[in-house]
């Protein structure tokens, strides 16, 4: 029998079982004697074993079989579902996931090491009398299995589509939208009401088409959750900290491209929360908090954006201490420090070289990383905000677009060139009178809400001749760089547009500060600027 025809089905169903196993392990940690969950775990390992045996993937069979045996011992009441059991099962699930990846890519299967032996020999040292002899009674009498039917996901009506085809569809939709702008221009010139009406109706349909096509690229946030659970748990265990890890909003969809880029930043923030944010149980009890801390990762929708929040109820961050530390490290002058709001002070953590941890650990490092986190979020067109209350905990909120290819931009003119800046990076636009621009030292600034905002010229950044502002008005937009507001002066603000962004090929794609190119309705080409790289 030719088994290769079943490989794709095997892989997708095996991964679903792994997901169920991971979720069930975490659920069981909260309520270790939940009989239906214990049964479900046993069944998951058992089914995986049977499937892998049919495909002749013997290493997967070996691991799944040892996991099944361990669960049988839990089910019979020989073992309780303790943290050591949970750890081993998650480790097994991770190893199987790796083996599945090897199978998928036709790689040589990775070694399974001593995991099967450790699963079989659990608990590591014979814990007294309870091995072979009299079994303690089962935690509850064997009740008939009954649990909500939620394991039928495998049968969802799905079609597998090559991602290249998807991108092609998105490309075509983008071209159609660009063409709509061309038609709008013609309609305006012809002053034809019926044409304008038809074009505008067409525009609505295109918008709907675009939304649907973009949805195809959406994947549930859940797709990247597995690694978070593992890293938070193992880090907490390693540091002897007790905590709950809660995940909320796994079902929310994000563009797969964005999801991929989120794994490292979120892992970093989560590890920081456990490593720096969370106190030990003794410290917590001494401040009158519950011994067990809580770390939450929640995802929710906010119109066309997605909010991802990592919060903890740990020790929090103290803006004053952060300012002092930044001054001590020469990252900030005392004068600059005085202009910082508490929220801006918290953003200091995103400066390269900043850390307030009492000691450097090998886990979240020396504050390297938060700057990289902030930059990668900005690159995705998102923003990062930090809230914290000393003694109560901190929260890091990422606000991200759900999709990427079509974005709203602010179009600006600098010299002969038009450039586009994603509106997600623009806080406001201003047209200042010349006398509102002040010179402080060597810098030009303007006052905004009691704050001196430095001004930079986009012409200068791009190496173009400086603007002259003949009518005495200085146009600029406000953006944020490294946690501080900056005004970017341009020759003219041309307004907001909807652009379909395409990556630039080689060698232009390598240029720092350029995120891509786009065509305007009149055929003119503009570059989309990546402010994070330019400032």
């Amino acid at each position, binding site marked *: 029998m030719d088994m290769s025809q079943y490989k794709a089905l095997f892989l997708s*169903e095996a991964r679903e079982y792994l997901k169920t196993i991971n979720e069930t392990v975490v659920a069981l940690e909260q309520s270790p004697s939940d009989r239906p969950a214990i049964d479900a775990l046993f*069944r998951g390992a058992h*089914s995986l074993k049977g*499937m892998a045996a049919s495909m002749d993937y013997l290493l997967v069979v070996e691991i799944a079989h040892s996991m099944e045996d361990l669960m049988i011992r839990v089910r019979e009441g020989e073992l309780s579902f303790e943290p050591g059991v949970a750890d081993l099962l998650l480790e097994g699930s991770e190893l199987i996931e790796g083996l599945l990846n090897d199978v998928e890519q036709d790689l040589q299967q990775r070694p399974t090491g001593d995991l099967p032996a450790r699963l079989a020999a659990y608990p590591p040292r014979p814990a007294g009398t309870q091995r072979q002899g009299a079994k303690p009674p089962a935690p509850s009498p064997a009740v*008939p*299995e009954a649990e909500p*039917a939620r*394991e039928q996901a495998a049968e969802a009506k799905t079609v597998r589509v090559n991602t290249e085809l998807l991108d092609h569809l998105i490309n075509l939709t983008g071209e159609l939208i660009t063409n709509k702008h061309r038609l709008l221009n013609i309609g305006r010139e012809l002053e034809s009401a019926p044409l304008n009406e038809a074009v505008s109706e067409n525009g609505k349909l295109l918008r709907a088409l675009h939304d649907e096509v973009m949805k195809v690229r959406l994947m549930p946030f859940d797709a990247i959750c597995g690694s978070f659970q593992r890293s938070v748990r193992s880090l907490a265990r390693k540091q002897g900290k007790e905590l709950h890890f809660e995940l909320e909003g796994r079902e929310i969809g994000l563009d797969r491209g964005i999801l991929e880029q989120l794994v490292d930043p979120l892992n970093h923030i989560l590890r920081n929360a456990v490593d720096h944010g969370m106190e030990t149980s003794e410290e917590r009890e001494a401040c009158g908090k519950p011994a067990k801390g809580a770390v939450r990762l929640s995802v929710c929708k906010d119109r066309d954006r997605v909010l991802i929040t990592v919060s903890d109820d740990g020790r929090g961050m103290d803006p004053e201490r952060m300012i002092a530390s930044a001054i001590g490290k020469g990252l900030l002058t005392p004068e600059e420090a005085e202009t910082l709001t508490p929220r801006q002070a918290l953003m200091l953590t995103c400066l390269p070289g900043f850390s307030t941890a009492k000691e450097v650990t090998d886990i979240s490092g020396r504050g390297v990383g938060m700057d990289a986190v902030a930059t990668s979020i900005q690159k995705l067109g998102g923003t990062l905000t930090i809230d914290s209350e000393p003694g109560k905990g901190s929260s890091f909120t990422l606000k991200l677009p759900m999709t990427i290819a079509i974005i709203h931009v602010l179009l600006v003119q600098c010299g002969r060139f038009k450039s586009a800046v994603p509106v997600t990076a623009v806080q406001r636009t201003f047209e200042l009178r010349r006398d509102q621009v002040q010179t402080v030292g060597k810098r030009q600034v303007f006052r905004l809400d009691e704050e001196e905002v430095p001004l930079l010229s986009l012409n200068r950044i791009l190496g173009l001749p400086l603007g002259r502002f003949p009518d005495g008005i200085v146009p600029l937009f406000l953006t944020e760089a490294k946690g501080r507001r900056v005004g970017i002066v341009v020759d003219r603000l041309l307004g907001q547009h909807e652009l379909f962004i395409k990556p630039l090929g080689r060698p232009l794609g390598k240029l720092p500060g350029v995120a891509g190119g786009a065509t305007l309705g009149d055929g003119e080409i503009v570059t989309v600027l990546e402010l994070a790289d330019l400032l």
Partner: protein
Amino acid sequence: MSTTVMIVDDSLFMRKMLRDILEEEGYQIAAEASDGEEAVARYKEFRPDLTTLDIVMPNKTGIEALQEIMAFDPAARVVMCSAIGQESLTTAATQAGAKAFILKPFNPELVAQVLKEAEG
């Protein structure tokens, strides 16, 4: 008319494999079910000539489903699918009226042979 079969297994992958093997042998797949409860309901609906029943399943195990199917139709011809290492369960299944057993992983020739015998 060809013999009708209902396939019961919680794994889509397993059902697909078994379906391919059985269709190759000329059986007509009347229905599929993915848990014990669904198996009982579908049996009553389709009355297949043969049923293959996995043992480890959610919402009623294969053994429980077997008991209910036999209570509903004492002439039912049910073949249990079990993995190596579940021999202890075969006694219970035989007592409950199972006609035969097939072992996972499936060997197409053996499966065909066992089903032929179970047809009686």
